[in-house]
């Protein structure tokens, strides 16, 4: 009556296992302790931070937002980006998927301590908000000449 339980399509479990291994590989070792202000993976918007000798660049992947709703503030080396993406959904429609984030968001990042809050610029293009902060000169390694 119940048939064979093992007669199920075992492909499903193979696929789940494969996906788990792919996820592990993509997200890497998670053994590092999380920053105290860090948010769960998958929070909107996703953030990348790049550093060079001269500056720190923060990229927020926030498609379809109105830059006028953004509130960006830098207090010493604490960067806060607040904004809102309010998606206007038409009425009387049937939804099949609703995966996109709608609402208010805030991300708080601790940048390297030598960033200069007086030298910040922000630029929004194609859904990516790029915030650049210059690093203070004093901390750059100085070349010492040998006479």
């Amino acid at each position, binding site marked *: 009556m119940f048939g064979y339980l093992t007669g199920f399509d075992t492909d499903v479990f193979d*696929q789940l296992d494969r*996906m788990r291994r*792919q996820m592990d*590989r*993509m997200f890497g070792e998670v053994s590092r302790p999380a920053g105290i202000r860090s948010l769960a*993976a998958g929070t909107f*918007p*996703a*953030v*990348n*931070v*790049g*550093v*060079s*000798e001269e*500056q*720190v*660049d923060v*990229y927020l*992947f*926030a*498609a*379809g*937002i109105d830059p006028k709703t953004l509130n960006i503030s830098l207090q010493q080396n604490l960067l806060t980006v607040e904004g809102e993406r309010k*998606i206007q*959904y*038409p009425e*009387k*429609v*049937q*939804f*099949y*998927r*609703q*995966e*996109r*984030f709608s609402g208010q968001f805030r991300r708080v*990042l601790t940048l*390297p301590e030598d960033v200069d809050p007086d030298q910040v610029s922000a630029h*929004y293009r*194609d*859904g*990516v908000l*790029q915030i650049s902060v210059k690093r203070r000169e004093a901390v750059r390694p100085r070349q010492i000449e040998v006479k």
Partner: protein
Amino acid sequence: MSESKEMKTRESSEMQAQSEQDVFLRPAVDIYEDGHEITLRADMPGVSRDRLQVQVDGNNLAIEGQAAIDMPEGMEALHADVRTTRFRRSFTLSNELDSGNINAEMKDGVLTLRLPKRAELQPRKIEVSVG
């Protein structure tokens, strides 16, 4: 009303990665339908119109985009939520959609696709004349 109103769009390929090169991001989508068309909105931040590809192959709809992020020279990643710049997702369209008349718009990293239903299959209002 009718039970045959099953999912009009069904995803086909899942993430298939053999190497780092093949890893794609699946963009978040909203899909909804009114009487005339199905609308799909996908988040693909960093993708401009010229780096977007929308392809219909028979019943298969594939959206693909390449994000461009200007990183200056000598920059290292300190933190990365996003590790790849390629988006891809595909769907199976049902026959009632007029795949030859898809309208695509790209603004601020959001792709909006409008897939109209075939004209003869749209609900038609029947006027009743009183006479």
